[in-house]
């Protein structure tokens, strides 16, 4: 049996004005378990708190009920008071007789009556409270960043800057991501490489950062502060620590007909390659699909020319296991495939290209060394048609495109159009759009310059069909404002393809028990208030894996994610919320119902041997809640048919006791 003290607060006249506080403290005196009941002007004041501490000592209280303002206001205060008085802080319950009573009821009689009932409910609950101690778990002070694009790079740099070790896992041979492929960046038109590559070098030189390039995460276990991650490092057949990145091997490699993915297949590379000049790590990689030595053991040229002796044809995939305290997902995006968009003749004409291909075509390090030449005949195009929203904002064609706006296309198309007109004023540039969306600092000004200063023809309307005819591309389109059909003979058509999350995101989400929306973008813990955290504690989101983003947004989110990670890693121990679910193993059926509703992946199962009623033993499957991961929503407790799952601090019996007290 508890020994409960009841403390009724007047809150000056805030409560005492419409609630007879003396009557409340008198009425609660006779409730089961109550051994002391009093009232005071300001319970939250130092004097009020001392009154509680004194009463605890004098009456040997085991539980406290404070009838006062909302627990959202002073629950923490009174819990601290209890702790100072030597009682477990979770033995305190607040009856909210201010916000939910005195302030909303005008009449003293009804106010008092209700305050007494709310007090009784709190007493009934405290009678069933048990001391709770928050669980503690250590924090591994190392972060993992999955993805080495600008999002991952920025997050890693920021975390490392705070002094914590960071590992970047990048599935390509180099970090840099999509940004490394871009030519100029809007709206300032500075060159992407000039701002990205120094950061890549910073990463490479930072002794807190390790890069696992050409690697993937294959398994994630554990929970916030204590993740056990397995990283698969693909064999690149070159010893990373020895290779100097001199490039001799790539020059001498006889197999030179490999489509160059960095230039989106618009030119070729050798079988042993360094993706681009500023790659980090700057080491060569042998492509096993094309290398003659690896395929049939005949060649070995690279090995011969490598002065450092870095080539190792026998290299195997390597599995690295590492512990992390936090994981940042920065898996980025890809343009969607144009295969389903036959109307734009992407697969029929080399001169119908995507915007990312256009970036490579205009880039000095690209296949045309920066000269805008059309891919089919390397002639200068005189009429260029840009088509926006290819696969974005589709509702009728959901299985073909995406319902969402890809967000970045309006701006990069304006950039492409402007740059084209700037360099080649003899070129006619048309942009077909549904809407032009330019909400960003200096974005709209940028777009208007494209129209007003550079004379880009912006036409509201969609392109219906592109038909290759001779060396021209016949573009059929509608001009919605002029309400007429247009026919343009273009030399080059550029499609602003929608972007989608990288395909590696979905299996990764499963490993992380992080949730995703139907488009495979990671879901944030709260769309407004926790935009860079996933609902799974310790997993954070950076960049376009969470939704389409441009570079400034990505960088700021990357910094935000880093600051969350730093906040986590700065702790030596994580103190959990003690009000978490727990399962009574004797009643658990192991049916997995609770696991399915848990938004945090906090529930796992184990097989345990039990003594059965007939004195035999049997193996039964039972649920186990990880208190460090559980956030205490209680969804599992209702899903559980046997009632084996209960929530500490809000137990079935406690809530029922409150219901009973209110209804009696």
């Amino acid at each position, binding site marked *: 049996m508890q020994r409960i003290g009841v403390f009724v607060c007047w809150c000056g006249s805030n409560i005492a004005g419409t609630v007879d506080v003396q009557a409340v403290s008198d009425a609660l005196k*006779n409730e089961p378990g109550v051994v002391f009941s009093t009232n005071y002007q300001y319970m939250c004041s130092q004097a009020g708190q001392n009154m509680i501490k004194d009463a605890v000592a004098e009456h040997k209280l085991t539980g406290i009920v404070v009838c006062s303002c909302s627990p959202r206001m002073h629950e923490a205060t009174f819990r601290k008071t209890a702790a100072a008085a030597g009682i477990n802080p979770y033995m305190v319950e607040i009856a909210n007789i201010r916000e939910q009573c005195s302030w909303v009821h005008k009449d003293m009689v009804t106010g008092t009556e209700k305050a007494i009932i709310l007090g009784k409910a709190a007493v009934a609950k405290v009678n069933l409270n048990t001391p709770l101690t928050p669980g503690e778990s250590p924090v591994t002070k190392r972060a993992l960043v999955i993805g080495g694009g600008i999002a991952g790079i920025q997050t890693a740099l920021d975390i490392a800057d705070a002094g914590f070790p960071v590992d970047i896992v990048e599935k390509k041979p180099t970090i840099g991501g999509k940004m490394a492929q871009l030519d100029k960046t809007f709206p300032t038109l500075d060159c992407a490489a000039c701002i990205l590559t120094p950061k890549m070098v910073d990463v490479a030189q930072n002794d807190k950062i390790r890069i696992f390039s050409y690697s993937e995460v294959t398994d994630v276990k554990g929970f916030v502060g204590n993740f056990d991650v397995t990283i698969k490092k693909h064999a690149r057949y070159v010893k990373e620590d020895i290779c100097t990145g001199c490039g001799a091997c790539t020059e001498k490699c006889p197999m030179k007909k490999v489509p160059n993915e960095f230039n989106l297949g618009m030119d070729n590379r050798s079988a042993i390659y360094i993706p681009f000049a500023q790659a980090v790590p700057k080491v060569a990689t042998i492509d096993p699909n094309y290398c003659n030595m690896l395929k049939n053991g005949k060649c070995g040229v690279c090995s011969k020319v490598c002065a450092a002796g870095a080539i190792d044809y026998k290299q195997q995939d390597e599995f690295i296991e590492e512990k992390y305290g936090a994981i940042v997902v920065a898996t980025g995006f890809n343009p969607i495939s144009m295969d389903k968009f036959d109307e734009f003749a992407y697969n029929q004409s080399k001169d119908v290209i995507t915007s990312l291909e256009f970036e490579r075509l205009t880039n000095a390090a690209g296949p045309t060394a920066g000269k805008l030449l059309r891919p089919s005949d390397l002639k200068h195009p005189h009429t260029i048609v840009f088509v926006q929203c290819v696969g974005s904002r589709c509702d009728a064609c959901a299985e073909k495109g995406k319902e969402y706006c890809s967000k970045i296309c309006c701006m990069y198309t304006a950039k492409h159009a402007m740059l084209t007109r700037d360099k080649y004023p003899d070129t006619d540039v048309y942009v077909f759009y549904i809407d032009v969306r330019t909400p960003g600092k200096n974005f709209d000004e940028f777009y208007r310059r494209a129209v007003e200063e550079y004379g880009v023809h912006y036409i509201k309307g969609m392109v219906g069909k592109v038909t290759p005819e001779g060396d021209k591309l016949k573009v059929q389109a509608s001009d919605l404002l002029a309400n007429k059909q247009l026919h343009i003979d273009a030399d080059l058509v550029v499609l602003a393809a929608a972007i989608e999350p990288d395909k590696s995101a979905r299996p990764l989400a499963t490993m992380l028990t992080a949730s995703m929306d139907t488009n495979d973008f990671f879901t944030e813990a709260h769309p407004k208030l926790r935009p860079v955290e996933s609902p799974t504690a310790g997993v954070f989101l950076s960049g376009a894996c969470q939704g389409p983003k441009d570079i400034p947004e990505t960088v700021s989110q990357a910094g935000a994610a880093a600051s969350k990670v730093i906040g986590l890693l700065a702790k030596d121990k994580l103190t959990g919320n003690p009000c978490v679910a727990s399962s009574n193993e004797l009643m658990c059926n192991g049916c997995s119902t609770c696991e399915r509703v848990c938004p945090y992946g906090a529930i796992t199962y184990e097989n345990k041997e039990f003594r059965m*009623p*007939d*004195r035999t033993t049997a193996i039964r499957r039972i649920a186990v809640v990880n208190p460090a991961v559980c956030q205490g929503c209680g969804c599992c407790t209702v899903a559980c048919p046997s009632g084996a799952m209960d929530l500490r601090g809000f137990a079935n019996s406690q809530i029922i006791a409150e219901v*009973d*007290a209110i*209804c*009696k």
Partner: protein
Amino acid sequence: MRKCSLDSMNLVFAEIAKAASLYLPVDGKDGKTAYTKWEDGLTWSNSLNTVRGPKDFFFPQTENLVEFKTSGKNIEIIDTRSASEDFVVFGVRACDVKSFDVLDRVFLKEPTDSYYASRREHGIIIAAACTKPTETCFCQTFGIDAAAPAGDISIWKTETEVFWQSNTEKGAALLTKLDALTEECSTEAVDAQKEKIAATMKKLPLANLNTDAFGAGKTKEYFDAPEWKELSESCLGCGTCTFVCPTCQCYDIKDFNTGKGVIRFRCWDSCMYSDFTKMSAGQPRLTQTERFRQRFMHKLVYFPENNDGMFSCVGCGRCLAKCPISMNIVKVMKTIGGKENA
């Protein structure tokens, strides 16, 4: 012996109901027969028996024993017993009538169960002879004559008439009240019916089932019989057999907290339940096999041992008809008692 025409039963019922509540078997909307409080127009069912026995009138499924009221820190104890009203249960079959002998042995023995005793005192049983027993009937196994039911009054129904005979003072007094509606008659028609029923009883599939292998002193012989395991193999542990049984008398006492006080009540319990007689040390019978054995050993061995050889089964056949998995006392008797028992 007195008789009345079947057509006049409504008047008879009205007369009985003047002084006491009258309950009789009535066919419900679902086609099943249940004891129902008589009101004008309700007619006596032609079916053999009710789904539930008449036990409920004397030993209801739940019954409040006492109440506690709290005010402040005081507790007040309230005796909730009230004087029972007179009531008549009409149309009780011979097997069910016999069940009261079993219940009386339990509840009227010292210390007397005052709740039960009061109802027995105020209740009158009008027993009706069976005319068309069914395949699940085995009352004759326990020496019960379906054609000559006991009770305060016995009645026999023919195509057109109902014959009345009182067996007790209470019965005689009630029958006197019906003088105006009945007339004195010979026992000829009743004797003929008794003979006919006796012949039918012999044709029943369970006619040869006997209790020779059971009774006092058989505990050691059967307690460890290996057959219990296979018999109980598919038992669900539900309480159907117990709750349709007219002789089962086990109950649990529980407290219900109303918020303003506590109601202490008793309710039927079943020895088939895993928490039957569970105490702080746990349930003494840990497996369903043990619980299953308890049920049948109690009916066939322990009860007769303590009650002058009286079995606590009356062969009404309700459990045969209602068990979800069709396991029952007949199968137990035949298996444990040996096939020659059949």
